């Protein structure tokens, strides 16, 4: 029962958050300097044609009417039409989002696979050589911004070693191998950069758990070190790490915006940049909304996983 309650509460929260996100997305784009009609028609347009376009786009109506209009449209799945591309915003996003997703998910996977075992290993050998070298390895990862890692990876693995292509995107449905080989470098670069946080969180979480009383008792019961680390400790230690992973996933999405430029990856990041450069208000709003939704859902997913792993939440503490 309690799990339902938990989800119910979370969904309530999300609805409220989402409302604020629409407000902000709307406000930000309307506060941006520059007259949209002027942008579209160019500096030589006449007063009349400007006014006509504003009326056509509904830009001279009161802001709250425009907002309500926009939200009603959103609820019907209509995000408006891109001024720059002349295509529905939803279509533009639907096309690019999966590509960015693919990149962000792959990057997070790389990070998790690297960082969790490293973190556990470091914690078990606290302050000894393996711990220090694992921490160093992870530290190197955050010592440079993501896009620089992108350049380094291109330089090393594409230019020098010639193992992978320098960039570009191929749909996995057309050419699976080609698609994957192009995914390796951007996902690797970003995953490497994300490793440090997750690994440090895993390490400190493990250290904390390893000093718990129940670990002491497990030893007093005669359990082996392996069972203690994997069965007793990791299951507890991973719970806070999951939140960090979800955050890193959202962060990966932020990184995607820059990294897509470096790797010529036609995803949502490049779309957003184009939209901002050309003051394409409906498209900017659409992109903000989608990215915000992804943040929210990844955190929601984190909470669900958290609840799944933590029986104190799963069954509710109070009944």
């Amino acid at each position, binding site marked *: *029962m309690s799990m*339902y*309650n938990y989800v*119910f*509460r979370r969904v*309530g*929260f999300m609805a409220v958050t989402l409302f604020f996100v629409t407000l902000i997305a709307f406000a930000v784009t309307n506060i941006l300097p520059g007259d949209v009609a002027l942008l579209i028609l160019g500096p030589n347009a006449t007063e009349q044609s400007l006014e006509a376009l504003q009326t056509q786009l509904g830009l001279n109506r009161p802001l709250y009417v425009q907002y309500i209009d926009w939200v009603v449209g959103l609820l019907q799945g209509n995000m408006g039409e891109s001024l720059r591309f002349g295509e529905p915003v939803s279509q533009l996003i639907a096309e690019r989002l999966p590509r960015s997703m693919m990149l962000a998910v792959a990057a997070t996977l790389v990070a998790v696979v690297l960082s969790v075992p490293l973190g556990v290993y470091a914690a078990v050998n606290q302050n000894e050589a393996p711990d220090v070298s694992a921490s160093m390895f992870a530290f190197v990862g955050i010592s440079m911004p993501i896009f620089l890692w992108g350049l380094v990876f291109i330089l090393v693995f594409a230019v020098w070693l010639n193992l992978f292509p320098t960039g570009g995107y191929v749909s996995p449905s057309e050419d699976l191998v080609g698609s994957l080989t192009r995914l390796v470098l951007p996902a690797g670069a970003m995953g490497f950069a994300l490793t440090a946080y997750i690994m440090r969180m895993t390490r400190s979480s493990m250290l904390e758990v390893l000093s*718990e*009383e*129940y670990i*002491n*008792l*497990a*030893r*007093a*019961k*005669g*359990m*082996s070190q392996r*069972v203690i680390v994997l*069965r*007793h400790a990791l*299951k*507890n230690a991973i*719970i806070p790490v999951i939140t960090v992973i979800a955050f890193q996933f959202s962060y990966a999405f932020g990184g995607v915006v820059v990294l897509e430029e470096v790797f010529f990856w036609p995803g949502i990041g490049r779309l957003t940049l184009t939209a901002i450069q050309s003051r394409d208000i409906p498209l900017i709003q659409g992109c903000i909304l989608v990215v915000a939704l992804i943040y929210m859902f990844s955190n929601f997913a984190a909470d669900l996983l958290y609840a799944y*792993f*933590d*029986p*104190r939440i799963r*069954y509710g*503490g*109070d*009944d």
Partner: protein
Amino acid sequence: MSAPTTATDREADDGPLLDVRGLRTEFRTDAGPIVASNEVSFSLDRGETMGLVGESGAGKSVTARSLMRLIDSPGEITGGQVVFNGEDLLQKTEAEMRDIRGNRIAMIPQDPMSSLNPVMTVGEQITETIRRHQDVSKSEARQLAIESMDDVGIPDAEERIDDYPHEFSGGMRQRVLVAIGFSCEPDLIIADEPTTALDVTTQAKILDLLNEMQEREGTAVLMITHNLGVVAQTCDHVGVMYAGNLVETAELGDLFDRPRHPYTRALIDSIPEVDTDYDELPTLDGAMPDLGNLPSGCNFAPRCPHATEACRTGGDPSLDSVGDDSSRAACLHAADLDLSESTVPESGAGRRDVDRSGEPLFEVRNLKKYFNAGEGVFGNVHLSWEGGGLPTVERRHVKAVDDVSFDVYPGETVGLVGESGCGKSTVARTALRLLDPTDGEVYFEGQPLHELGTSEIRSLRREMQMIFQDPQSSLNPRKTVGQIVGRAMEKHGIATGEEKRERVGDLLERVGLSRAAASKYPHEFSGGQQQRVAIAHALAVEPKLIVCDEPVSALDVSVQAQILNLLNEIQEDENISFLFISHNIGVIRHICDRVAVMYLGKIAEFGSIEQVFSPPFHPYTESLLSAVPHANPDRETDRILLEGSVPSPINPPSGCPFQTRCPKKIGDVCEQELPELESVGGADHYISCHLSEEEMSQRDSFITPSKRAETSPADSD
């Protein structure tokens, strides 16, 4: 995996089960090595129970963990032998030790809340032990686990085996730990403070359970505790530890009749006993020396009332047998000293009289405090699926305090006592407006606190101070003690500049610290000293009321006695009122004038100490008082063990809140009607129960005046 060995082929008939010889465990610290267990020797026979007592930091746990070879770096066992079943455990490999741990020697840890893995079901935690040490299938192990849960009195074991630890109460979790401990029928159980974290009523049940399990299985028990009451109730013989050394060992009776070491005497004396009246508790001044910086002579010399020149030189005395009984003591003068008489100061005319003719200083009427169940904005919104169909949304509350009334007169100490979670602290916090009351009235010197705004409350704060269980949490670690105490004076415009400094110095001396303490930081003090600083801080603003929330619960008995005496003394001098919260009945009995017994957010009984501790009793008070273990092995009380555990305050029982556990429940009235808190016998003694006065008076007083020294085996029945 070792095959289970049966009791018969294990038994090495001759010799004790456990023979510890010269055990030495050291820790490497930055300040050099410290010896936490120094040449400790004792032995334990099959089926026997030995107690290990001493102040915290004496080395009890380290000694116990050394027996199981569970000492982590930077610690190391550097010498001695631990002969168990004829074999020296210190010679075994780690793998061999793992076969012994949990199997032949098992541990029952202190804290039921943190000792079970929160993400594993209790069943998994029991079966993994069984499967680790016995060659059984998964389903057989599960069956054994259910049986062992049954054995330790967990109801519906078959259904509860797949529950997680958080779904059990503290007492039930401790039972799970007992079940784990006994699951492989070990020869020796090491129980490290197994009941310290529990309420008296639960403690009594767990101790009974341990005794029963031990008798059934013939297990030997090493019982580590700082509670001499627990020792008196459970042990056959006792070891007393001080500063890493065993300073006395004796059979239980001998230890209490005639302690041979002055430290043992002092430990026994500093416990406030329920049936004894004291003006002042005998205290053991000072603190245990730092293990890294021991005195050159007897470790106890700086605190010992019998110390002579000889004691201060020539190293720590060794543990030698004394007299013709079972005792061994590490004291140069053990043979000459007669410590059989307690050094309790003569009790005077009894407690001072409180003048209740005027207006009360502090009055609480019908106070209620409900919390939202759950956290956050939507926290208490709950989907109810009852009744089928669509779920309905409802809001739920924890009724932490539900209709509580009492008053405190000037110069009086009123106690709030009850099991943890019954709402004691919430009463105090709500009454002081640290929390906003849900309903009810609170008056301080006639002013309605519940109606005042925040700024008015703030100016009244000066008159009402609070002292907490954990002094560290209330003392800013980055400020010196002088700054902490001085700031309070400045904030309320009591003194500034030179005068302030003067007063801070005076106050620190007043609470038993030196003037020089002003320039030190809180962390440089021990727990007891920090509590003194907290008291000085509270006194700095010359309050009329101090609320003390479990102020001595985290302290060792010797320190506890010092702080209690200090509070009494201050009250005498300044005529301050105390609202004193504690779950320790002995402490309440010693320091309070009147006491309110709380159960599930309500007051069950309210009256003077004499009234509450003598018949008529509310059934809850009666069981609470009967469960207190006495530090006197000759004293048998017939204890009332309560069934079940405290119900959830989200969903309290109908009628009388105590009806689900009350041994005297009459029937329907109790289930349907909430008994009023009514005066009994026309006096200022209030009880909330449907029983008649007669029915509540079937037991003798718990405080029949008797001086401890006079309590001899002859007059206990």
